[in-house]
């Protein structure tokens, strides 16, 4: 085990990024076209990076698995994006956004990175507005803000319930401008299946064309992964069906460290599951918690009653009762655990799945009474419509039902202050890296991080890497390239020709999901995690024995795509449990039952666990390395939302 060097600058926090920028090497405009950069993924992080690198004059090759860059899952983010503009004069500042993010992450993130994120937040809004992102505005013509997800200031910018979609369309249009300039060459319906490393440097990737099945190698001077998170390890999550860990997992298996894999966020406000054939869960924006009141029946006998017939005195507004100061706006992890607790007590509502009612009410009747139906429609109209189309129930008349679902993964590839992984020339941005959210992400921070990385940080640090490196010419005949191509083909061959083909990819994925949801979800415990690791190992052998993929590998084959992704999720699931066992404390979203206060709140152990756990793949087993976190400016405190 060795200590990881995050390459942070030193000195006063507010000067660090500027100081660091000045120390970065530059490449003159006329020389930039000599460099080739591969970008994988075109969500907020990837699209914004492609646009910025293209504008600067580099040659960029980008890939995404979707049929268009505009469809990446960033599009589904509803609520908003934070920026410390302090337009509302409510005491916000860079420092406060920094503090809220560090505290929200339960003091498990790097101070320098988070401060930089807060500093860049304002530039992102400027950039997005200039691209034509139609943020909500006041009648005066000024930008509107709202308070969102556990903050006491109004710093969230939003575009009704489609903030992610509008920001991505902004980044996608900027990227499209660079595609037409010829500096960005983009390939849709393509999936990265291997990383090519030559002399300890990331020099390319192997890609499968999802339509023709063709396997090809792509060489460059460096590789940036903007491939999102891995919530789909749980099978049921709010992520798009195609979201996967394969790119980051290939990198891990080639030597990039995977940090805090067990830090996964379970979002409290999702539409509850209704049955066994459910393929995904849908998030209802957390902004609903601004005006909706969460409650469950006080008495189990009321759980199958029409909620409108349950008297006020028989309702338990449990978040307001448990956390009077923040009430319905407590951070996501706290809300999710409280909700699960109520359902585990048997006070859940809605249809029974596995003999348990999974849901509590989110009630808008008092706000409708207060500000009127029209105002509520204007604020939440599209979310209410979405709920109605999924459930067939009208939330203007009957309270919504919500239940937690996996939503975001704070863990990801370990990166230093330059967003570079432990492999030279391999960068990771956005949700694919672990960097800024510690053990729990605050609402409206994911969009901010993806865009800060893509527009402002990675373009500078990637240039610095290129300027300081010498690259030898390589082509498709290089032994490393040939070997990478061969290993991809061999793996596909194994997936297509299991010894005893019997079960579909979804069969294994659902099994893995159930194991992870119960052992490595909202609450974890040593024995259960150990048992889960054993179950996952068995599932892995069963998978390779009996995975059944029909059709051909030289064709558009969605079953084959799924099989490859599930194989990687199974291995990652094992590492998630391994990491969760190792962290003998509770922090943020990581709630170890052995380390909870009587109130149910997380009990951190700063003496022993104030570190990032970064796992290295060594001869088939994960080996732990630690990056110790130093808090020079903020004193870690108990995260008390009472």
């Amino acid at each position, binding site marked *: 085990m060795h200590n990881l060097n995050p390459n942070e600058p030193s000195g006063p926090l507010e000067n660090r990024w500027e100081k660091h920028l000045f120390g970065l090497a530059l490449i003159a405009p006329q020389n930039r076209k000599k460099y080739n950069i591969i970008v994988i993924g075109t969500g907020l992080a990837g699209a914004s990076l492609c646009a910025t690198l293209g504008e600067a004059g580099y040659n960029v090759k980008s890939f995404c698995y979707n049929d268009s860059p505009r469809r990446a899952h960033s599009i589904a983010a509803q609520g908003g994006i934070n920026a410390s503009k302090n337009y509302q004069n409510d005491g916000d500042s860079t420092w406060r956004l920094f503090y809220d993010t560090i505290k929200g992450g339960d003091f498990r993130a790097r101070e320098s990175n988070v401060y930089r994120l807060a500093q860049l937040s304002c530039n992102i809004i400027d950039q997005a507005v*200039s691209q*034509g992102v139609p943020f909500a505005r006041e009648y005066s013509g000024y930008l509107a803000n709202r308070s969102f997800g556990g903050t006491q200031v109004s710093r969230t910018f939003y575009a009704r319930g489609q903030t992610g979609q509008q920001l991505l369309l902004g980044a996608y249009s900027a990227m499209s401008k660079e595609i037409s300039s010829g500096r960005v060459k983009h390939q849709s319906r393509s999936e990265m299946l291997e990383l090519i490393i030559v002399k300890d440097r990331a020099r390319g990737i192997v890609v499968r064309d999802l339509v023709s099945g063709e396997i090809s190698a792509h060489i460059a001077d460096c590789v940036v992964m903007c491939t999102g998170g891995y919530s789909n390890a749980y099978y049921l999550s709010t992520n798009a069906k195609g979201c996967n860990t394969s790119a980051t997992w290939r990198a891990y298996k080639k030597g990039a460290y995977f940090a805090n894999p067990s830090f996964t966020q379970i979002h409290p406000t999702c539409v509850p599951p209704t049955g066994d054939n459910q393929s995904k869960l849908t998030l209802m924006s957390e902004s609903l918690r601004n005006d909706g009141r969460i409650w469950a029946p006080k008495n189990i006998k009321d759980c199958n009653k029409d909620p409108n017939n349950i008297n006020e005195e028989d309702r338990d507004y449990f978040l307001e009762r448990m956390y009077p100061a923040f009430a319905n706006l407590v951070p996501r992890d706290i809300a999710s655990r409280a909700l699960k607790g109520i359902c585990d007590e048997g006070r859940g509502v809605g249809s029974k799945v596995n003999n348990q009612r999974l849901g509590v009410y989110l009630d808008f009747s008092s706000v409708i009474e207060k500000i009127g139906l029209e105002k509520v429609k204007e604020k939440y109209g599209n979310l209410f419509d979405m709920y109605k189309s999924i459930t067939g129930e009208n939330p203007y008349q009957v309270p919504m039902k919500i239940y937690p679902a996996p939503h975001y993964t704070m863990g990801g590839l370990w990166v230093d202050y330059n967003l570079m992984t432990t492999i030279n020339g391999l960068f990771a941005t956005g949700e694919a890296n672990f960097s800024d959210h510690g053990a729990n992400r605050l609402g409206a921070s994911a969009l901010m991080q993806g865009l800060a990385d893509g527009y402002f940080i990675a373009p500078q640090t990637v240039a610095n890497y290129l300027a300081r490196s010498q690259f030898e010419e390589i082509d498709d005949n290089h032994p490393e390239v040939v070997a990478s191509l061969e290993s991809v083909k061999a793996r596909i061959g194994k997936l297509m020709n299991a010894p005893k083909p019997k079960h579909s990819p979804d069969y294994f994925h659902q099994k893995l999901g159930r194991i992870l949801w119960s052992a490595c979800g909202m609450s974890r415990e040593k024995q259960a995690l150990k048992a889960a690791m054993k179950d996952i190992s068995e599932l892995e052998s069963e998978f390779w024995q009996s995975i059944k993929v029909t059709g051909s590998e030289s064709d558009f084959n969605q079953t084959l795509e799924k099989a490859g992704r599930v194989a990687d999720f199974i291995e990652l699931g094992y590492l998630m449990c391994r990491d969760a066992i190792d962290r003998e404390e509770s922090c943020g979203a990581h709630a170890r039952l052995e380390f909870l206060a009587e109130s149910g709140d997380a009990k951190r152990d700063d003496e022993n666990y104030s570190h990032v756990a970064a796992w290295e793949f060594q001869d088939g087993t994960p080996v732990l390395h630690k990056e110790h976190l130093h808090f020079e400016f903020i004193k870690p405190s108990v995260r008390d939302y009472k």
Partner: protein
Amino acid sequence: MNFILHIWRQQNAESLGDFVTYQVDNIDGDTSFLEMLDQLNEQLIEKGEDCVVFDYDCREGICGTCSLVINGHPHGEKNATATCQLYMRDYANQNELWIEPWRASSFPVIKDLAVDRDAFDRIIQAGGFISVSTGSAPEANSQLVSKDNADNAFDAATCIGCGACVAVCPNASASLFVAAKINHFHQLPQGRVESKNRAKRMINQMEVEGFGSCSNHRHCEVVCPQEISVSNITLMNSLL
């Protein structure tokens, strides 16, 4: 519920396709339309057959990937809804379903129910952007936008680029898609500077891609999952 499904199967763009009939049984009303197809594909895997290819991703109506013509209606008969947001309870009275891909020569079938919509990306690349580079943006509140303009821009910007407007149009016109993008930017002062040029370039690209012209059938706004209005097309034409 039990359903008889007539599904368009086509190996690739060059080959001829045809309907193949399948049956799925015991479908719950809360099952989504795409989950029903998932169940069919599970059956096909069990039988050792190649699965039906169909596009999907977010399954919450926002990414614009899903694209099915169901009983002759792009995204099914339900208004303001993408295919992934359809539930089988809506089909309680129809036990026979015809499922086809988008049909337009500019959207060639790739396989079965999936089509190639790259033409939309190329239209955006031709001018569907504001020409600003990263880092050169002024302070966000330095330019005010009236709430009406901001709301109109947003209404146009909600287009998810699914292509249902093309699939339903007798001319396979992409006018609604193109007009929505043009109007989105035209409503905003920072976008208006390039409006005329943008409109010219995008419309030109639309023709190059082989999409037809608008002849006011107005089917597009009826099938649009985001209810984009044809008044966008009026605005687009006024810019020419």
